[in-house]
């Protein structure tokens, strides 16, 4: 994966199992969001392939890609709500576009989704009228509108208070448990990583490679890579080692 001559990531290879909460972690600038953009087809990898249920996404035609992406929901970093629409309209739009539901049924489903993220009563509010945390929750409601098989979350906890952040973590776990949704989360928030991840990869900004994969608790217990340990312990292990010396 590269921007022109600048290689962001090389030789990245991993599998995500159906129904997993999979976390892409790493420090700032390590290429987490670039990897996500590649997974969503917003950027093209220089070489290699991305497979969804065994089908090539990279080599798929535009209509095939659209069909594959329809099985995915995405929460963007700042919610990316359409500012000229109310929250109900934001959540209802994908339902109106891709289902045969009647308008009142669309409203009922959209209301339910907003209620699931704790935004009951805000159906007619515009994005500019609510807080950043609420915008992000509304973004989650829109992402789950069509009950996607795969959900991508780009920095879901960024800029949120711990309670809202924990609410989104709980929602991710509920969706996985009750709808069997596969969730791919890009984050560097350790609390979230340890709370939700079944499996995770660590992208190293220095080598620009994937340097570790596994459950974060197991990585913390067994991984010998210095940079992974430093990341998972907030740099405390380095400080402790320096003090010992």
């Amino acid at each position, binding site marked *: 994966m590269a921007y022109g001559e600048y290689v962001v990531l090389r030789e990245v290879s991993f599998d995500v199992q159906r129904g997993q909460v999979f976390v892409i972690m790493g420090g700032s600038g390590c290429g987490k969001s670039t990897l996500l953009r590649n997974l969503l087809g917003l950027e093209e990898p220089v070489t290699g392939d991305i497979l969804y249920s065994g089908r090539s996404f990279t080599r798929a035609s535009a209509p095939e890609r659209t069909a594959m992406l329809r099985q995915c929901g995405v929460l963007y970093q700042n919610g990316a709500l359409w*500012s*000229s629409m109310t929250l109900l309209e934001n959540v209802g739009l994908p*339902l109106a576009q891709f*289902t*045969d*539901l*009647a308008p*009142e*049924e669309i409203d*009922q*489903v959209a*209301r*339910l*989704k907003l*209620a*699931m993220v*704790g*935004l*009951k*009563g*805000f159906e*007619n*509010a*515009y*994005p*500019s*009228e*609510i807080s950043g945390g609420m915008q992000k929750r509304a973004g989650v409601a829109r992402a*789950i509108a*069509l*009950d996607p098989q795969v959900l991508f979350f780009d920095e879901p906890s960024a800029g949120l208070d711990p309670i809202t952040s924990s609410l989104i973590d709980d*929602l991710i776990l*509920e969706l996985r*448990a*009750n*709808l069997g949704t596969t969730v791919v989360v890009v984050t560097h928030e350790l609390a979230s990583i340890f709370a939700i991840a079944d499996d995770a990869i660590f992208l190293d900004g220095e080598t620009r490679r994937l340097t570790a994969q596994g459950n974060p608790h197991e990585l913390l217990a067994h991984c010998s890579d210095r940079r992974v340990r430093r990341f998972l312990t907030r740099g405390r292990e380095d400080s402790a080692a320096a003090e010992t010396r």
Partner: protein
Amino acid sequence: MRSTDSSTRQMAVVRGADGEMVIRLAGVWRLHHGFGAEVEDIRRALTGATAPSRVSFDASRIQSWDSSLLAFLDEIAELCRARSVAIDQAGLPQGARRLLELAAGAPVSAAQMPPQRVPSFLERVGLAVIGMGAALEAPLAFVGEVSAAFGRMLRARARFRGADFLEMIRACGIDALGIVALISFLSGTILAFMGAVQLQQFGAQIYVANLVAIAMVREMGPMMTAVIMAGRTGASFAAQLGTMKVRQEVEALETMGISPIEFLVLPRLIPLVLMMPLLALYADFIGVFGGAAIGVSMLHLSLTTYLITSAHSIWPMTFVGGMFKSFIYGILIGLAGCYQGIRCGNSAAAVGQATTAAVVNGIVLVVVACGIFAMVFNVLNI
């Protein structure tokens, strides 16, 4: 048992002897098919003569489900609540029960709710009148702030970056030369062509040069330049500042104690005001050459004769008047663009509205000013 499509969902309502109503659900409940008919069936069952005292579910034959089942169940729960009918969800899939609990979750407090009240007619009239006052007050306050900032700049106490100022000189001046040249040349040719058709009838075709020169220098040069700059630069100012407002860059300046008017508005307004007379002068020349193209090709006048006649037809005060107009037009366009950008809302739609308003207001102000200039110049015999 109702079955809209046997391969999808099925529902049956069974009445018990003790006033209980059991809703049996089966099949595949997916979002791509509606559930309105089933909701209507339940609504009728709940409002009929033998309304149940309790509703329960048997979902043991459901094959798969998604949010369509949840939305259906949520609606049933709402209907039961409204009719004080007890509801027992024990027979539902565990996942569905959990997600419905999540949706029922903590209610939002009244303080958090956005205002939903629709104001009365009188209230709306009152608000509109107050709004009109505010609509006048805000631009006047902005003009006042810009004037004060300009005063500070003259005393070398204003804070802005010289690089921004020079960049805007380029953007408002050099970058606009191409479009101004094209429009002015075409304006000159159109004026000359229209004049030639009429004046040829009287053998007075040489006066085409006078017509084009006076029209370009006095009105068309400044006016066409102003329209171009309102659409090009005024819109750009509004979009730039509006986007900065959305990204909280303006607030960041304010919290650092830097006046956005000094830092953002002056480096845009002043270059535009300085460049406008120069662009109008440039437009005048190009327009005269556009007229000359018609004079030489259609009326067979020599280029020298055409240009000398043009030069003799322009009085110094006509020229000064045109330059003064373009200077004022620059102030109006710059103020309209910057004002709309600075007062822009916090959304992408607001940036679009600000940009549109900047262009519309800029052109309206220029046309109004043009009318006022016409009357004043007539009184002053310029």
